[in-house]
């Protein structure tokens, strides 16, 4: 948890949940696991507010609780998760992806679940149906069944998952595997169960949606009983109480990565090959687990059958494309056998292809950063060093075709910004300077981390600037809001045009200009945040991929 990350998390929490939650959240992020009393004392917040904030944080998955350090008897300790809070930055991207995949209904479902943290299926369906009806014309309303089908599609493709069952604290321990109810595990689970450890993670809707069997849900519901602690609420119960759904961020990330692969293939080769790769990825979407190194091998026949109908290419051409993809130095696709016309795999995780791909995507970012900070020639040097790994000063000048003096200058600026590093290779054991090679090199992983921290700092600065701008012009913004409200109410009650123009003139022309400029700035800042977040995603996934080799 670096300082930049904590600062960014604090700003995000403040924007979404208010200052109280921000204070509690940053305290938890900085201080690690703490119990309730400690938090209240150290942040000087009344106990009730601390409780409320913790409820909010747990609801949104940003905080986990577990039994204390001294065993089951000690007070409950809370841990905040920096990663989860940073996801908030990516919410618009998730929602937009859901929209492109599943239309407006899917978009609203994901939006609701994101805003509320976790929800039961029935609640989600009702809320979304209401919202859709609200936007529809008079007299039409949204069927629950349509929303339910969109929901089930999201669950089938693993975009939504069930929330993991809560580990009980104290002596009564629950089994983390609800498929065997009534046989509680002997020992209390020390680590909070992840969603994936629950075998029913994506299973339930398959069972209940056939024939809208709400009755069946209550029998499945019994599998979720936990030590008899549940309070059944009789009113408005649809039988799926206690089964909460949350957004599966990993799945969305996988989708983003797939999109990155496809666009990289498209830019390097051509559209058709990217379609082929897209088909392969889609076929193996659900069968590949997150940590698999390779997708399941797909035979060329299967690929041929699954190609989208508008891409009617003949079989020999498909084979040619596949061999092209295999031979490409980027190694997007690997060949793993010859049965069924040739088995092909796409490597998903570090070695070698995914890492290579990540690396290349990453290095492109680094190159872009270089270019934007220092100009295209420095970017050329950076790229050269990445390609050739280690180069001497003289070699850099030669390969980059840049005059010596400028090359020196650029190298030193890059060195001072830590984008390149100096590697000493002694010729003699006494490391005499005159007999040592000094090579310039780029250390990928540390540089990636550096860039990531820069990105966090950037986003935090953007948010702060936006807050500053809003605060500066608060008076003007409030005035314009009031006037809009007056206008709206006048129009609703049917006023004459003169009255409307009179109200509109309450804002003077220079004020209007100021407001326009302010809106323009805020839009720009917001848009930049979104785009920096794309780089953040890329860098984060690269760093993550190097960790799990």
């Amino acid at each position, binding site marked *: 948890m670096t300082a930049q990350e904590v600062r960014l998390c604090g700003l995000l929490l403040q924007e979404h949940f208010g200052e109280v939650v921000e204070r509690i959240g940053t305290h938890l992020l900085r201080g690690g696991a703490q119990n309730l009393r400690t938090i209240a004392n150290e942040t000087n917040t009344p106990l009730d507010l601390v409780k409320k904030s913790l*409820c909010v944080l747990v609801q949104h998955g940003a905080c986990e609780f577990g039994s204390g350090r001294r065993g089951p008897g000690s007070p409950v300790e809370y841990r905040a998760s920096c990663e989860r809070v940073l996801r908030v930055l990516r919410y*618009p991207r998730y929602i937009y992806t859901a929209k492109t995949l599943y239309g407006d209904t899917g978009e609203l479902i994901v939006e609701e679940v994101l805003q509320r943290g976790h929800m039961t299926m029935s609640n989600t369906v009702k809320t979304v149906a209401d919202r859709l009806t609200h936007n529809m014309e008079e007299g039409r309303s949204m069927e629950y069944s349509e929303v339910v089908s969109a929901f089930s599609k999201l669950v089938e493709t693993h975009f939504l998952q069930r929330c993991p069952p*809560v580990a009980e604290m104290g002596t009564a321990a629950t089994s983390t595997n609800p498929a065997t109810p009534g046989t509680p595990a002997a020992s209390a689970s020390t680590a909070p169960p992840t969603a994936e450890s629950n075998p029913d993670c994506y299973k339930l809707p398959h069972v209940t949606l056939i024939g809208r069997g709400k009755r069946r849900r209550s029998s499945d519901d019994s599998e979720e009983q936990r030590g008899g602690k549940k309070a059944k609420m009789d009113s408005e119960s649809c039988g799926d109480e206690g089964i909460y759904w949350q957004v599966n961020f990993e799945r969305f990330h996988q989708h983003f990565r797939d999109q990155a692969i496809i666009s990289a293939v498209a830019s390097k080769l051509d559209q058709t090959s990217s379609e082929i790769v897209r088909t392969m990825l889609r076929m193996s979407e659900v069968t590949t687990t997150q940590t698999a190194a390779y997708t399941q091998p797909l035979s060329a026949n299967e690929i041929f059958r699954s190609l989208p109908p508008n891409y009617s290419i003949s079989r020999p051409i498909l084979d040619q494309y596949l061999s092209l993809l295999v031979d490409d130095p980027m190694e997007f696709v690997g060949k793993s056998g010859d049965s069924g016309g040739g088995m092909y795999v796409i490597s998903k995780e570090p070695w070698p292809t995914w890492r290579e791909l990540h690396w290349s995507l990453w290095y492109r970012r680094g190159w872009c950063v270089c270019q934007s900070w220092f100009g295209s020639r420095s970017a050329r040097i950076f790229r050269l060093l990445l390609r050739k790994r280690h180069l001497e000063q003289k070699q850099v000048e030669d390969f980059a075709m840049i005059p010596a003096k400028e090359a020196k200058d650029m190298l030193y600026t890059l060195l001072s910004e830590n984008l390149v590093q100096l590697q000493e290779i002694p010729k003699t054991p006494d490391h005499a300077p005159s007999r040592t090679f000094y090579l310039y090199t780029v250390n990928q992983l540390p540089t990636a981390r550096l860039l990531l921290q820069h990105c966090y700092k950037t986003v935090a600065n953007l948010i702060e600037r936006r807050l500053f701008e809003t605060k500066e012009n608060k008076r003007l913004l409030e005035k314009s809001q009031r006037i809009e409200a007056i206008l709206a109410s006048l129009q609703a009650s049917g006023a004459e045009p003169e009255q409307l123009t009179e109200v509109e003139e309450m804002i003077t022309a220079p004020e209007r200009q100021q407001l326009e400029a302010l809106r323009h700035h805020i839009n720009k800042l917001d848009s930049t945040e979104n785009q920096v977040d794309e780089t953040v995603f890329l860098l984060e996934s690269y760093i993550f991929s190097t960790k799990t080799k």
Partner: protein
Amino acid sequence: MAGRGRGRGRGQMTFNLEDLGIGRGDSLPPTTFKPSPLFPPMPVQPVPLQTGEEVEYMLALKQELRAANKTLPFYIRRAAPKRDVDRYSDKYQSGEPKDSAIEWSPDWSRLPKELCIKVRKPLAKRHPPQVKQPKKPLVGKEEILTKLETLEKKEEAVNSEEEEDGEKKKTNEEEEQAEEEEFEEDFEEDTDYIMSYFDNGEEFGGDSDDNIDEATY
């Protein structure tokens, strides 16, 4: 002494400057005496932002989400600080968030017991008096205090139900009654006054007839 002949005026270092490419007679950039400026002049103009339908849609989404967050119950505001004197209208006009109440009802079975806090229902809801559910045993000495409080409140809740009907007060009382029946821990009511002492003056006129015969001194 041994190094005095070499690199005079430049300072002695353990490695040979030639190898790094700084030859003799080259001028190094001037040393800096203060931290770099806050907004340094940029040698290269930044790449313009991406534009397009997708980008604008996500921008609109982001701004909507931000606005919507403020209306959700998850946005926690501190209760407004108490004014100098407790006013009568506080009891009826409590539209602001209270510290001791939470505006949404989470699933308490998924949270540790110690986080349980009174849920504040919106005033518009009316609850018919519910059948008292068996209370869960409380831990600690709070149990005795809360039991006394709840007994007290039940008494005056019954009283007030008989006196008034269809008024806001009833809604409040029923709310309180319903609340304290449903939840284990009950925090103190917002006023310091004991409810049964409150005399709303309906019985005032009744006694005056009896005292008319007595002489006033």
